[in-house]
């Protein structure tokens, strides 16, 4: 029985952490290039809606996931245009993205409320899935959970072990030096902001196609914001972001554990936990000194121009 609770809790923590994982990896890439995109919540919502709508209309889950990523990437491109080309205020542009993503998804999504669409189902990985307990917890999940397992080490490898990854970090750290070395700063920022958006869309698609397979207005419920905090928590390292995402996932499913253990905490109080936990995490990870020491990209949120600071 206890073992059962453990396996259920851990596997639901992984499920709850997966959308956060994708969204924070996306934000991490954008921020590494020096672009702060506060619009994650809006991009997740557009992704969740698009994924659901495409799945509903075509029944093709692969297409649904790709469309979700593309839709969120379009929003991200808008932010990139504002931040990189127009050198507009990135905070305001990011907020605009939240409004737009939430509004458009709610607007177009209204006819899908209460509908059912094809959803991602679990499948057991041969051999690995047969391992007692571990197999059940880790390798008997839906395909996007596995994508999460694979993508994080890949992104880590890309960031630290490839030339392109090095260029990306250079653009976020010292854009003028990168420019002098012949790296196209603007292009780099466009690319990773857009790729970051696609990841946020993937996180959104996970919500509407796997986690709670339906469309509900504003269903991401602040996860986009939590993902931004996670990037800080992870000190811009994809591996820590992964651990953090599952940890946050664990906090948000804590309520089920407490219910099973028959600890009487009202549902609405338990729903505060992820947000309160996020605040607590921020208490320990904020501060300029802390960020400098642990490697926040130096040029984060600062537009770049060859003529120097404007």
């Amino acid at each position, binding site marked *: 029985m206890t073992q059962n609770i453990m396996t259920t809790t851990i596997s639901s923590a992984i499920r709850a952490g997966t959308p956060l994982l994708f969204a924070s990896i996306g934000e991490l890439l954008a921020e590494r290039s020096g672009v702060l995109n*506060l619009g994650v919540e*809006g991009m997740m919502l557009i992704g969740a809606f698009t994924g659901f709508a495409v799945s509903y209309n075509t029944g093709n889950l692969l297409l649904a996931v790709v469309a979700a990523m593309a839709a969120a990437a379009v929003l991200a491109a*808008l932010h990139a245009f*504002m931040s990189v*080309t*127009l*050198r*507009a*205020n990135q*905070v*305001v*542009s990011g*907020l*605009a*993205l*939240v*409004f*737009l*993503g*939430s*509004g*458009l*998804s*709610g*607007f*177009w*999504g*209204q006819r899908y409320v209460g509908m059912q669409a094809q959803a991602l189902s679990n499948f057991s990985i041969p051999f690995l899935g047969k391992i007692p307990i571990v197999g059940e917890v880790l390798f008997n999940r839906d395909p996007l959970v596995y994508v999460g397992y694979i993508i994080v080490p890949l992104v880590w490898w890309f960031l630290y072990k490839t030339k392109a990854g090095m260029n990306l970090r250079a653009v976020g750290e010292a854009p003028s030096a990168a420019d002098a070395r012949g790296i196209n700063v603007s292009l780099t920022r466009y690319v990773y902001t857009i790729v970051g958006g696609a990841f946020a869309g993937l996180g959104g698609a996970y919500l509407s196609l796997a986690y709670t397979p339906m469309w509900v*207005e504003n269903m991401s*419920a*602040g996860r986009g*914001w939590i993902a*931004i*905090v996670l990037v*800080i928590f992870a000190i811009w390292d994809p591996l820590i972001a992964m651990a953090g995402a599952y940890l946050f996932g664990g906090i948000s499913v804590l309520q089920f554990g407490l219910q099973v253990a028959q600890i009487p905490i*009202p549902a*609405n*109080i338990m*729903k*505060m936990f992820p*947000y*309160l936990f*996020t*605040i607590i995490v*921020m*208490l320990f990870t*904020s*501060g*300029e000194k*802390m960020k400098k020491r642990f490697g926040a990209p130096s040029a984060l949120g600062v537009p770049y*121009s060859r003529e120097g600071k*404007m």
Partner: protein
Amino acid sequence: MRLKIEKRNESASTLSVLSMSVLSVVVSLVILGFIILSLGKNPIDAYIQLVSWPFGTIAGLTQSLISMTPLLFTSLGLVLAFKMKLWNIGAEGQFYMGAFGATWGALFLFNHISNPWIMLPLIALLGAGVGAGWGTLAGVMKARLGVNEILSTLMLNYVAIYWVNYLVYGPWRDPASYNFPITAEFPKAAILPQYTANGINLGMFLAIAASFFVYYLLKWTRFGFEIDISGDNPKAAEYAGINVKKMIVIVMAVSGALSGLGGMMQMSGVLFRLQPNFSPGYGYTAIIIVLLARLNPFVTVVVAFLFGGLIVGTQQIQLFLQIPFSLVNAFQGLLLFSFVAGEALLHYKLRWLKA
């Protein structure tokens, strides 16, 4: 061909700022028209109703003024915070907490008081106080530990909304409500004077008075001067002997107090009982209002009124044209985008270069 951006030498004139604002709205409306069209609805019909109901009928005008009130209180709170470049995104949560404070006072702490002259100031203070406390939390975290106020105030919004949910679904639920998640009705002493049968109440006038108060604060007091300097140049402010960290906490408190007061007015003036999700995002709309009003308290009144009309008008077209209410959010997003682009274009100009 390559797009190049260059700094403008001259600073933007009032006329160009104004025409840029008008242009932003027009561009947003055109794009929104296509979005409406995508649902197979006629945008011209939608726009006609969107404007004619809230601004062309007495009933609609009244409703617009009523929804202007919470928008104005939350917006004025943000004017102060944004002046200091404090991104308080938490007006929504502070508004909820103000409503919570007012309800706490009206139904539990002071429910034996039957004189409105005593009751109303007390619950107004309590609402403002709880809202101020909610803002202060984020202020202290920012001042002491450097916690980003955008993220902290946003998280606090969710906490506040669930807190109100907890109360109205739990201990504060009215036993006579047939299991609806609402509290009991406010006693008579806790209800603001009503001037018309359809709900114009003292709250609206107090909101307008508050805009004078904020204007006075910013323009004529040392506090306003300190806000200005701390926002423009914190280093210079420190040299001038201003304790910027203290300012952060105080400004967040005052900002939260105004939003909290708005929550109290909404309870005492319009709704009379606490209930879940009683705000259609007033605190978020306030962000757009103050940015479009360029942080001017008086312009804020006008813009808040227009947005009150926008909310009322959208409710109308939702009812009669089956256009989802989320249209408001999409419109606000578009407005904010064109605002931020316009702002950039006032300071820079784009040029096509032959590569």
